[in-house]
C-alpha cells in the first residue's frame, strides 16, 4: 500500500490542479477519478490500520 503521506500529497496536488487550471473535460474526469480512488484508499488505510510494533534488538556499541 502506498505510504499515507504520498497518498495525501498526490490528492492535494490533484485537487489544486482541478481547482486552478482549465482542463479538458476528459483530463478533468481522469484526475477526478484518480482523486476519488486515492481518497478511498486513504480512508481505508485510516479505518483499517492497526499499530505494528517492531522491536530492534539492542546491540552494544564497540568501544
Amino acid at each position, binding site marked *: 500500500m502506498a505510504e499515507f503521506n504520498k497518498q495525501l500529497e498526490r490528492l492535494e496536488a490533484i*485537487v489544486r490542479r482541478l*481547482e486552478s487550471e*482549465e482542463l479538458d473535460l476528459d483530463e478533468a474526469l481522469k484526475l477526478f477519478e484518480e482523486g*476519488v480512488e486515492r*481518497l478511498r484508499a486513504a480512508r481505508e488505510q*485510516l479505518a483499517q490500520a*492497526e*499499530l505494528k510494533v*517492531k522491536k530492534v534488538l539492542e546491540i552494544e556499541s564497540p568501544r
Partner: protein
Amino acid sequence: MGSPTPLDLFAAASAEGAWTVGEVTRRARAVIEAGLPPLWIRGEIAGFKAWRSGHWYFSLRDKSAQLRCVMFAKQNFRLPAPADGMQVFVFARPSMYEEKGEFQLTVTELLSTEQGGLWKLAFEKAKAALTKDGLLDPGRKRRLPLFPNRIAVVTSPDGAALRDIQAVIARRWPIAELIVVPAQVQGAKAESSLCSALNRISRLLVDVVVVARGGGSVEDLWAFNSERVARAVAAMPMPVISAVGHETDVTLCDLVADLRAATPSAAAEAATPDRAEVLAQCGVMGQRLGRALRIASRHVVERLDRSGDRLVRGIEHRLERSGALLTAHSARLDALSPLRVLARGYAVARDEEGRILKRVAQLRSGKEFRLRVTDGEVNGRVQ
C-alpha cells in the same frame, strides 16, 4: 586480612625482635580502621586524576594538610568529574593502602558545596560546549513530519514510558509502524547504550524519533545530560522528540532535540496526527474534489457555449452579407432590364422568328414584324 590482633606495640612479631613491613602496615591498617569509622570530610580537591579503569584519585586538602583519596568506578560512575580547586564534601572510609604504605580515604560519596553541586557544574560545562558548536541554535530545530510512516522509540523496553507511547500512537495514528529500540536509560552503561541505539536508528528509514524516559533523580537522568548522548541526538538525520524526566528537569538531550515534550505520552502526541482529524480532513478534500470537478466541467460547458455563440454569430453575419449583396445585384439587374427600357417609351421590333430588327436593311417594304411595347405586343407591316 586477618582478624586484628590485640595491640601490643612493644611486642616484636619476629624472632629477631624486628617487625616486617607487612606486619606494620597490617597493624596500622587495623588501628586506623578500628579508630576512624567512615566519616564526612570537607576539603578542596587537588591533583584529580581519572584512570582508564574508571577509578578516581585525588587529594583532599585544606590550608595545613592533605589526604590521599580514591573513589572507585562503581561509586563514581554516575558522577560528573570534579575539578581541582573545587570545595567538596566526601563520605569516606579511612584506611591504609598497604602496598604503598599510604594513609588513604576510600570515598563513597562526593558532593560539591557550590551552587547546584557537581551536576549543575557538569551540565553547564557540557551545555557551553554544545552552545559553542551551535547545537542549541533554535534555527537547527526541524519540523516534525505531518504523517509519519515509521516512528522509532528509544527507551527502556519494560518501562511505563514505552507503554504510554505505544498506547497513544495506537489510538491516534495506527497507520505508523513503531520501531522500538531498547536502551538502558540509567546506570553505568546507559550512555553508550543510548548512543548505540540512536546510531542504529540513524541508519534506518524512520520519519521521527522519540527518546523517552520516566522521571527520576538527577543521578538517574545522568545519561541524558551526557555530552556524548546530546551530540548523538544532534547528529540524527531525522527529527528527534525528547521526553526525559519530569517537566521540571530539563536535560541536555531535551535542549538538543528538535522538540521537547513534557512526558512520553506528550511526545507520542507530538509525533502523530489524530486519525479522526485526518479523516475529517479527507472529507473536506473529497468536497473540494467534487467542487473542483463541477467547476472544471462548468468551464468546459462555458467554452462550448462560447464557441456555439460564435458559430451562430458567424453564420448570421455571412447571411447578412449575402442578403445585402443580393439586394445590390437585383437592383443592378433591375436597372439593366429591357422592360425598364420599354417602360421609358422605347419599343423592340422582332421578325417572325423572334430576331430583333435593328437595321433599315432588315425592314424592307411589306415586311411583317411584331412590336413589343411596355404593356404588350402588336403586329405591324413596313409600308
